[in-house]
Every structure is written in C-alpha cells, then in structure tokens.
C-alpha cells in the first residue's frame, strides 16, 4: 500500500488504462501542455503524445460531441470537463446523444466514454462555480454515474469506468483532489454498482456519496463520543445503485439519514430518501432525514457558503432527530 492523493489516484488510473488500451485517449481544456487545470493529467502528454492527449478549445459542446462520435466509431475517450459547471454547455450531447445512441439505434451502437471532472461546491467561488449538478445526470436513463470519495475508490472505479462499454459520468470534487488515502501497489479495479460500508455501526445509517463522506465520517466520530454508533454507507456508484447495501444497513439500524451536498429539490439524495422510506417502511423507527444544501445559489462569503452546505453539526442533529434524542 502507498498513501497517495485522490488526484494521483485518478492520474494512475488514466495512465494505466491508456497504457493498456491504445483506443483510450484523453481530451479536454488544458489537459495536455498545462497538465490539467487540477493537475490530474500531469505528465500524460509527455508520455503519450499529442495524438492521445488532446488540448481542446473552450467548446464543451463540440468536444463532448466529438467524443461521442469517436466512441460510437470504436475509440474509448476520456472527456475531461474542467468543471461540471461548464459541462452544462454540453448537456445536449450527453442527454440526447451519449445516453440515447444505443437506444435510438436499436442496440447497434455503444458509446464507451467517460466524462469526468470536479462537481459540487468548492470555496470562495460564488454561485456559477460552486454547485452539485449530480441529479442532472442521474436523471437520464442510458448513463452510469459514479461519485467516489477516496483515492482507493477513485482509482479502482475510474479504471472500471474506462473499461465500461457505456457512457459513464465520473464525479470528482475540487476540494477532494488533495485528499490522501491508501491505494494498493498492485493493479486492481472496483466493480461499478457496489456501495461500501465505510464505518460499521448499530444505531443509525448515514447514507452519502462523494465529498460529504468526510464530514459524515467526522460526524460519526463525534456521535460515537456521545454513545451513538453510526453506520456510514458510501454509495460510490449512483447509477446503477446498490440498493441492497442501503436496505441491509437500515434493516439493522432502523434509522436513516441521507447526506447530499446538492440542492434538496429532485436531488439524488431525495431520491434515495424516498427509496428508503418506501422499501424499508417496516424497518424504520423514524422518518428518513435528508441533509442537503439549502435551496439557494452559493454565496461568495465564506460564512454564508458554509451555512448553505451540509456540516458535521447538521448531520449530527439529523442523526439525533431520527433517534429521538
């Protein structure tokens, strides 16, 4: 095992898969000469050359659509969006082409591509650059959606995403790139569609994904000090969703809190909360709680932006609420 950053884990996954399969190529803004806006593609241009590491103009719709066509015709593009905020410009190509091509052609064409980059709130960026757009993608049939929160999960799942024959949306986080964690020295992959229990517990299930995992784990530690034993369920894959792992946990704890840094209306977290409410009705001893961001655009001021988002305190309060403490 080595301790590496989330950024390095992603870089290793891309490097290993480009080395393994010549059809894999990387394209996006600043991925080549600049080594990536967040340095995920550091050194890849030097290693693989300009044919396989393509610096694009700032035209998300154009280069994302180009990746769809390349994938239909047999290549395996990794399309980096500098942030998912800019990916909104490319939504037509994702929703109407990447996700639908197999369907519209009656199964004749696959679109084996990965779209990856930072999603979700960061810091001091105001409202256009600090927002979680997860539900834009989970809403659309024909896409897989992955949101890993640790270097180990990021590397193993990105390798699986690149090998997958479907369009995969891979959600990272600007504030997560410097997070560190243990990653095996030997090659490994993690299957898409499997949740991971990050902390075992008896009293309450806290279900989350992506960046909030860190504050959920901190909240669980704080709750432990107060004698509350929380179980942390990290979804890792959102679509397909490992519902079984969620329900097994809730069957054991009888209480559930869902934490999602998106806005609450029609969010992936609200969908999970609905699933648990419906499918675990007989197991639940309290209504499911959802901890989300406030339904407001992100302010620049730091105190205000922190107030908008889920926090250790908000998660602890929700856990206590479902425990009637």
């Amino acid at each position: 095992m080595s301790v590496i950053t989330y950024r390095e884990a992603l870089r290793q996954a891309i490097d290993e898969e480009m080395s393994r399969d010549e059809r894999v190529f990387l394209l996006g803004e600043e991925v080549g000469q600049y080594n990536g806006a967040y340095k995920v593609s550091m050194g890849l241009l030097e290693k693989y050359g300009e044919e396989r590491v393509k610096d694009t103009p700032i035209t998300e719709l154009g280069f994302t659509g180009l990746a769809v066509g390349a994938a239909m015709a047999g290549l395996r593009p990794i399309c980096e969006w500098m942030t998912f905020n800019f990916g909104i410009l490319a939504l037509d190509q994702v929703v109407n082409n990447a996700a639908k091509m197999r369907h519209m052609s009656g199964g004749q064409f696959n679109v084996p591509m990965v779209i990856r980059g930072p999603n979700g709130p960061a810091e001091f960026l105001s409202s256009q650059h600090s927002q979680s757009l997860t539900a834009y993608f989970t809403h659309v049939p024909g896409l897989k959606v992955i949101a890993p929160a640790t270097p180990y999960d990021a590397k193993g799942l990105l390798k699986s995403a690149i090998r997958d024959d479907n369009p995969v949306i891979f959600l990272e986080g600007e504030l997560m790139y410097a997070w560190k964690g243990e990653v095996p020295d030997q090659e490994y992959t993690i299957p898409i569609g499997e949740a991971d229990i990050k902390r075992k517990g008896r009293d309450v299930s806290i279900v989350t994904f992506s960046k909030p995992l860190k504050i959920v784990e901190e909240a669980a530690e704080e709750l432990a000090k107060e004698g509350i034993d929380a179980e942390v369920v990290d979804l890792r894959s959102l679509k397909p969703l490992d519902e079984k792992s969620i329900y097994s946990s809730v069957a054991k704890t009888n209480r559930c809190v869902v934490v999602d840094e998106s806005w609450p209306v029609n969010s992936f977290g609200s969908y999970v909360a609905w699933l648990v409410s419906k499918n675990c009705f007989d197991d639940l001893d309290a209504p499911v709680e959802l901890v989300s961001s406030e339904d407001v655009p992100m302010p620049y001021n730091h105190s205000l932006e922190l107030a908008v988002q889920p926090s250790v305190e908000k998660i602890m309060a929700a856990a206590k609420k479902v425990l009637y403490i």
Partner: protein
Amino acid sequence: MSKTQTKDASKIDIKKYDKSFLEKLLEQMILVRRFEEKAGQMYGMKKIGGFCHLYIGQEAVSTGTIAALDLKSDYVLTGYRDHGHALNCGMDPKSLMAELFGKVTGCSRGKGGSMHMFDAEKHMLGGNGIVGGQIPVATGVAFKIKYLGEKGVVLCYFGDGAIHQGAFHESLNLAKIWQLPVVYICENNMFGMGTHFERVSSTSDFAAMGKSYNIQSKQIEGMDVLEVYEGISDLVKSAREKSEPALLEIKTYRYKGHSMSDPAKYRTKEELEAYKKKDPILILIHQMKEEALIDDNKIEELENKAKLLCDEAVEYAEQSEEPPIGTIYEDILV
C-alpha cells in the same frame, strides 16, 4: 424569392460517365422518391405517427454525394430528414418502412422511428433529431479515422437551420485544428421549418462560414445529381488523401412541408411549381435521353422496380410483429 437558378445542364459532360453509373443514380433517386411518397401515404393512413420529414425534391443531394463514397471505410451522419440518406447507404427499404411503422423488425427495433435510421454495417450513423446535434458526433467519427490511420471520410449532413448552431461552429473549428477528414454538407432547402433562411442568416453564402475557419468551402446547385457528384468528389478526395475538412453548401428544395403536419403556407405555389420544373429526376432523364443513354422502357423498368420494393416494404412492415413490451428495458445499457 429565391435567387437559385438551375445550372445549364449542358455544362456537365454526361458522356464521361458509365451508363451503368448513371442508371444507378437514377434508380436510387426514383427509389427515394417512391419510398417517400409511400411513406407520406402510410402517414395519411395513420400507419406512421409522430414527426415524419420527407425528402422529396432533395434526392439529388444524398444520391449524388453518397455515390462518391466507399461505405466500407466511409461514414454518413445526418439530421432527422434521413430516409434518403439511409436508402442511398444501401439500407433495406423493408427495415426502414418497418421502423416507420414502429415494428420490431425495423432497423432500430421500433425505438427510433423516422428520425433515427441507423445501420452499423452500412456505416449509417443516424438520423439525429436535434438540429445540428449530429455535427460534433460526425466530427468525432472523423477523429477516429485519423486516430487509427484509416483512409475514410465522413459526410455530415444538416440543413440551413442547423448552420447557426454552436454545434456547427465548434465542430468546424475542431475539424480544422485537428485536420479531420470530414465533409460538412449544408443541404440548403431554403427553409428552416417555416422560416426562409435569408430572414435568419447574416449571409446568404454559407461557404463564407467555412472559409472563416480556413476550411475549403464552396456553394453548388443541388437539383442536378451530376453537378452534386462532381461538387463532392474532389472534396472527398482531398479529405481522404490529405485528411482535411471541407464545407459544401448544396442549394436544394423540398416539395413537401417541413414535416407531415406542415401545409407550407410560407411559400407561393409559383415558387414550388418553378422548382418542380427542375426536378432532379427529370433533369437526369433529360440529360441521359439527349445522349441516348436511356429509353422509356428502361425508365419504366426502374419505376416498376422501385414500386415493387416499396410495396414489399409496406407488406413486410404490415406483417411484422409489434415489439414485445419487455423490450422497453432493452438497448439502454450494454
């Protein structure tokens, strides 16, 4: 009124073409015309639903351009007015008509309909329902050709309505900076749905848009199939040999409305009748007859063959099964 004039047919030296090649062009245009007439008829009988955009009047464009391709290594992508391109790629009229009927035997298993004709084997990559949505995708197919060092070319069709989309402009820029083998073909049929192109365009010469990206571009007339064929041939050749993009604006005309629900009140009867006089099928027949390359018997033979193919296609579509309800969960993820 449109400024379009038919080029003097005598400028094309028909004698340099093989008789069999000319017959094939005529056969394809007649097939497309009769297929579309049949589709319109079936739509009237409610056998076909939804949006159905007919290609009648524009036959010379897809027939003349696809005739310059080798679909073992070349590719075709187009918008929603795609029946003509599909037939010219060699797709079976049966699988097209069955798709229009929504049957499981259709090329897209009844999931695509009129706007989504696909055939992996014939290199027909759709059939796209979003105006301009296919343009970046086609650019990506050209990227694959270059990436793998192949010798193919992509023909990417769209209309005068699509040329103002960002997708078009972003694609041309990408194709130029990466020197991709794709020919963008603007089928200017004068109307983006019901709006005359001159009312919504900064220029009436779309070739200027290609030139602004340093891409070889030209504007040609599209009612004479041989003029279309000659117009595309050198662009296909340079795309293949030098791996470079091109833009070809082909001025054409659709006889029917934008879709089946459109009575086309935005144009005069006189304009439509003027175009029908320079009908692409009549022009080719006239040219061939002048050089005694075809007679009425042969024309009748081609007409009968097309009629038979279309009748058989309808019969096949009628008799095919509805897709089982369970198929709604299929063809989504691999």
